[in-house]
């Protein structure tokens, strides 16, 4: 194996990491000539270690994404030859009222999947912080996190039973003397979407609470002590210490749950399949139905691409908002 001329002397040179950190400028100047191969060596060795993961990423992430983008420009039933249709599939996404309405529904779901869980999570985390008993704290954490370990599809089925005309929700309302409010929640044009949203709230609150509790644990307790000595009320402490201290954690909560809301599939599919009428239709379910029940792979891919872009368009600015200063 021939060696690059500059490297002949390199035999005596140690790896960059073991080079004395206090190398004088003059020394650096002399090493620069053969420092380049050293750098690229470290660089390429790193890439080599990443190769298996990169390969998996290329095959199972990049390729499907590129295929979906490509398919979105074709009319294809998944079996016979595809015909190119230009941007017709995209035009349809933005002109068909039902496809557009489903995007609006997913935006409404953000209220239930993100806003409510974060508010509830903040409240619960602040309260649990003050619970001195470790036993009670652990119990609270476990209970709050429980919904998170149940698959969304399974909890959707359980909630479907609870929402049924004689289910737990209506039984509770009747027991409270609110029998006039009872209804078939998932069959009601006005209430089906909020009812589906509540399932998402139930699922996401545990995750948010846990993340926020971990965040609160990192805040220096002396800050709270100092604040209370200065006579700050609980609410003032929350606003001045807890909230700014949790900026990054809230950012994570919001990002994860917003994606869950916009790309929701399992909860809606298992509870209403988009009904009654079109009142709970969301892009995730539409993508599935277009591709697998209607065999319209092109149209389905176009909607999936639009959905991905929508998620990015909502999530990227959020990243900026929650960036720690």
């Amino acid at each position: 194996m021939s060696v690059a001329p500059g490297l002949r002397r390199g035999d005596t040179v140690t790896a960059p990491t073991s080079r004395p950190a206090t190398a004088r400028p003059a020394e650096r100047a002399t090493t620069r000539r053969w420092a380049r191969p050293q750098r690229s060596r470290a660089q390429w060795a790193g890439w080599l270690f990443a190769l298996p993961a990169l390969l998996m990423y290329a095959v199972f992430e990049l390729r499907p994404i590129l295929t979906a983008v490509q398919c979105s420009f074709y009319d294809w039933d998944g079996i016979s030859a595809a015909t190119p249709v230009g941007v017709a599939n995209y035009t349809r996404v933005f002109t068909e009222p039902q496809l557009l309405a489903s995007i609006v529904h997913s935006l409404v779901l953000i209220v239930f999947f993100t806003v409510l869980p974060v508010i509830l999570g903040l409240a619960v985390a602040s309260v649990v912080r003050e619970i001195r008993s470790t036993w009670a704290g652990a119990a609270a954490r476990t209970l709050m996190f429980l919904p998170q370990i149940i698959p969304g599809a399974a909890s959707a089925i359980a909630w479907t039973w609870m929402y049924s005309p004689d289910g737990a929700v209506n039984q509770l309302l009747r027991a409270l003397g609110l029998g006039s409010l009872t209804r078939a929640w998932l069959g009601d044009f006005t209430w089906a979407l909020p009812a589906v949203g509540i399932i998402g709230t139930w699922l996401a609150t545990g995750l948010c609470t846990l993340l926020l509790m971990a965040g609160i644990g990192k805040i220096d307790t002396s800050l709270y002590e100092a604040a209370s000595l200065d006579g700050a009320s609980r609410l003032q402490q929350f606003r001045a210490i807890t909230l700014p201290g949790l900026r990054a954690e809230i950012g994570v909560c919001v990002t994860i749950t917003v994606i869950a809301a916009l790309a929701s599939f399992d909860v809606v599919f298992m509870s209403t399949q988009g009904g009654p009428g079109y009142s709970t239709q969301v892009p995730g379910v539409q993508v599935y139905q277009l591709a697998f029940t209607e065999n319209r792979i092109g149209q389905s891919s176009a909607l999936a691409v639009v959905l991905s872009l929508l998620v990015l368009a909502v999530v990227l600015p959020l990243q900026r908002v929650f960036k720690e200063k």
Partner: protein
Amino acid sequence: MHTPVTRRTAARTGALLALALAAGTTAACSAPGPAANAPAADSTPTAVSTSLPTTPVTLKLYDGQGLKSVDDALIAAFTKQHPNVTITATYDPDNVTTQNQPRQLASSTPPDLVRVISVTAGTKNNLLTNLDAYATAYGWDELPASQLAQFRAKDGVAGAGSLYAKASGFTMTGLYYDKKVAASLGMTTPPASLDELSSWMTRAKAAGVTPMVVANKEGGGVFPFQLIINSAMGPKKVSEWVFNAPGATIDTPEAVAAATTVAGWNKAGLFPGSVNALDATAADALFASGKALFFPWGNWDAANLDKTMPGQVGFFAMPPASAGGQVAAMSDAATAFGIPARSQHKDAAAAFLNFLSSDEARQIAVDHGFMPSGGADQAQPSIPSGSVLGDVTSAFAKVSAAGGQVPFVQNATAGISNRAWTPESQLLLGGSSTPQTFVANVQKSYEDELKR
């Protein structure tokens, strides 16, 4: 000790990386779908034989999980007659067969017997074997025409033309009724006209029972609607619509009238109050509670009802508008078996199709709750006494004799059920739509999907 990485090695690693990324992504560069030079398959065999090969042959069969017990029984009986034939079956969950069957059919090594969900989709790409030569050789043309019409297709339109599948049995729809509730109201014979049916429902409401169990969460509200149009529009026009015949429309005065009747029944409180939230399981439970009179549903529930309400349930075909008119029912195949064009064992597979209308297979179909395929001159399968299946079978015989077998409107196109029938019927029964808008929107969705 360090092994120096040279530029060349580095370059090589780089090339490797680029190659890996490319390998992962290149397949996406060609147009989706098969290459134009895919091997052609013989979809219209002419030299066919009714004699089975004498050497051992293994057939692969593909069907839905719900049909497993009846298929297994049919396979056992057939292979007993033909010991050199082995049939290995694969079953997918029923709701998944819709998605997987087209891919099974398009595979280069497809099963030899496959559940045919859409005859036109199967013929479009020459993926199904034209069975005309076998029909002549075996004499299937003597079967009642309405039992084969659903599996015929010509130029992308089903209902007439060449034969592509044969059924292992049929489903049958109509109205179950609770005999105990009926007797308490004074109803001794099933109603003979639509008006009579309506008046019994009104009386049931006055007596405090649910007049008609309809579960519309999954679009069950389409059931009473289609039961009415089957005879109002006539089986031929409804079938043509489902078969996508050119110019067929559901936007007819008869359909608007039927939707008006159904919406009116719901408005008058003759359906359960939470009709749009009720699913099939909840509907079953409501009917089994003994507090309901009619239940528009099908043969698939007969065994279950025999178990939960033994001897208490009757069944009749939907009465026509006026007594003595056309009786009809939605009735399609339990499984319509077809032979993929690329199958290597077409003669043996055709022998299995022929077996499906034999006396032995007919008994197996009935034993599993399906209506038998075959002619009226064949021996009648025996049915356990007291089973509601007796009522279902005689209703089927009546409908079959009247040429009233109609396919389900939800099967007109792949997307029509999800995209139009279910949501639109929910809007209709929820009071957010009118009968005219209901049929017009369904028709619009139908045309959109067909012209795409």
